[in-house]
């Protein structure tokens, strides 16, 4: 009986996402990030979770959609790769900690990685609410090359 109750509790506190691309994962509710407006051009994707890549520390994460299970992005922490970047973000809207992420585009032939610094993702760490901010009028590009992902580029 206690076991059944525990299972029920687990079932209500987590979401199972079945994806042909990324496999099946159980995401605890406290790990769900809510983007009420979705991403630019993808308004239907409002709930995501972040996954750490296998094998040690990395500047990359995976931002995986819960609503569209085969939708996923490689993301990086742009403030780690480009230390000057954080200063150009508008002052935090809330008082709490904010996680900044940039979506990384992987292209083949030749294989290149670029980060979208013009439209970063800002996630409030307390409420786990995020949005894609557009730094209109900034000098940042949607396709900032990531030549050596583990080596921060020299000052721009």
């Amino acid at each position, binding site marked *: 009986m206690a076991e059944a109750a525990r299972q029920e509790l687990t079932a209500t506190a987590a979401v199972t996402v079945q994806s042909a691309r990324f496999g099946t*994962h159980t995401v605890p509710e406290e*790990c769900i990030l809510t983007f009420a407006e979705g991403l630019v051009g993808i308004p239907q994707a409002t709930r995501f979770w972040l996954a*750490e890549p*296998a094998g040690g520390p990395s500047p990359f*994460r995976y931002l995986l959609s819960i609503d569209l299970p085969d939708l*996923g992005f490689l993301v990086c922490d742009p403030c780690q790769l480009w230390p000057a970047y954080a200063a150009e973000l508008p002052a935090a809207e809330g008082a709490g900690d904010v996680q900044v992420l940039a*979506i990384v585009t992987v292209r083949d032939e030749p294989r290149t990685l670029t980060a*979208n610094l013009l*439209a970063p993702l800002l996630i409030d760490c307390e409420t786990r609410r995020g949005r894609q901010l*557009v730094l209109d009028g900034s000098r940042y590009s949607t396709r900032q090359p990531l030549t050596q992902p583990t080596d921060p580029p020299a000052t721009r």
Partner: protein
Amino acid sequence: MLILTRKLGEVIRVGDAVTVRVLEVKGNQVRLGIEAPADVRIYREEVYRAIRRENEEAALGQIDPLAPAATPWRKQLDRN
């Protein structure tokens, strides 16, 4: 498409909460002043299109070989 003619300083109102004012007309450039609630996102069309396109391209990227370990990020910040 609704087509309206406005003079310098005149305003168009969209719904109850959004106004667009003609601030300056110089040659082929028009400066517009837009007032809208904070939750109304306003973009230059070409910027919106570039970001939408980049989001779509990023979604198509071959990230599968780097398939994630099932370790969801929790509330903590990355410690650099």
